[in-house]
């Protein structure tokens, strides 16, 4: 029984380590895939994408919040990343949209 439980733990651990590796490589590849556009154009794209993601994700549960300062919004959206399980990309675009 102990051998079996150890084997299961080992398998789970390997799976998690592989997940971590995958996360690491995915994060690195996302740096490469950032568009090399002039700053203003990137901002406009981020705004449009942020608004879209805000409507899709936040509007599923509640009405739009007040306008908050960037520091307040950084905290509120971090909370919602955990609570509503926003993806990392969603969180970044929504913060950008709500603070610009």
């Amino acid at each position: 029984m102990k051998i079996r439980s150890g084997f299961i733990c080992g398998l789970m651990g390997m799976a998690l380590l592989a997940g971590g590796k995958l996360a690491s490589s995915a994060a690195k590849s996302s740096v490469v895939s950032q568009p090399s556009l002039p700053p203003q154009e990137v901002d406009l794209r981020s705004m449009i994408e942020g608004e879209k993601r805000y409507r899709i994700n936040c509007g599923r549960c509640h009405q739009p919040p007040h306008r908050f300062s960037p520091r307040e919004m950084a905290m509120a959206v971090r909370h919602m990343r955990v609570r509503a399980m926003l993806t990392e990309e969603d969180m970044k675009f929504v913060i950008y949209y709500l603070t610009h």
Partner: protein
Amino acid sequence: MSFSLFSRRFLASVCLAMSALSHAQEGTQTASYSVNDSQPVPLLSGGLAFVPTWEAGTPTLVSIISPVLLAPLGKDLVFESRAEFEGDFQPRNGTAGDFTGAVQKTLDYMQLDYIGNRYVTISAGRFLTPFNVFNERLYPNWIRNTQSDPLIFPLGTGSDDGLMFRGGISAGKNLNLNYTAYFSSLSGIDHFESERHVGARIAAFLPRERLEIGASLQHQLQQQHLNRLGWHLVWQPMRVPLELRAEGAFSGPEGSGLWLEGAYRLPNARFAPLRRAQVVARTQAFQTGSIVGLNRDLPVSDTKRTEFTFNYFLKDGWKALAGYGRTFTALGNSNIWTVGMTYRFLLPLGSRQ
């Protein structure tokens, strides 16, 4: 499998997961956008509600204060907590006389979140049990469209003390997956009461269709060792200001049921003030299980209920509401009338700039 053996496996897995996360963290730091440079400030948020209800002729003055404390602890740690103070005041002589009642104090959650990487967040402490979505996402009065709890709400929900893994993952251009997996321990400590559970929830969200479908599973590791199954659906069609929400839950001994809610906004109403209005209809059914009364918060007989609510969104987080519902049971039918106000607040506990 004994509890101690399960705990050892679980702790070993957590240790391995932490090492994996620390490895992955190296990558995620380099990927951060410059838009997230703002340092988060601690917040005191929450909601207030005053929703008098008349159920079967008996008035209840329901008053709720529900503060939420959010505090950042470094780059990847968040402390969050919510308490609820609810006073249900009823006439001393049944339907007449002065109103009296106790104020219930509840600690809904008090947890530390470690945002490990884009795939996983680890939460430790007291958390809202992630069974279906009403408990975690729709419970606050200022959010919910219909003020009464769904009949199946006591099935598998509440709060638990333990450890939880969760995350949202983009699995394609039009597919996001989200999951939670948790383990909780038994506690009888005042305000930290918890059952021993293990459970998980997984859901798929299609952003283009704005459709989420998910399933929940929970196993009780004490007493009757109940299994509870749940499903949820949330749909917001792109072209119509409509929200459809539904949940179902099943537990053989406790009972099973479902609810379905549609909420329609009137953004294009000719009469401009109506553009802030929302009409809601919810219908639900509950069927008792093989052991009636096992879960004391569930109805003791088969029950159906249909409710209609009119919500009006005022400025600055205020919402006015009025509702009517009718409950059908073998023990007798009754009406529910609700009228009231809710308010959502947010205060920074530090410099806003």
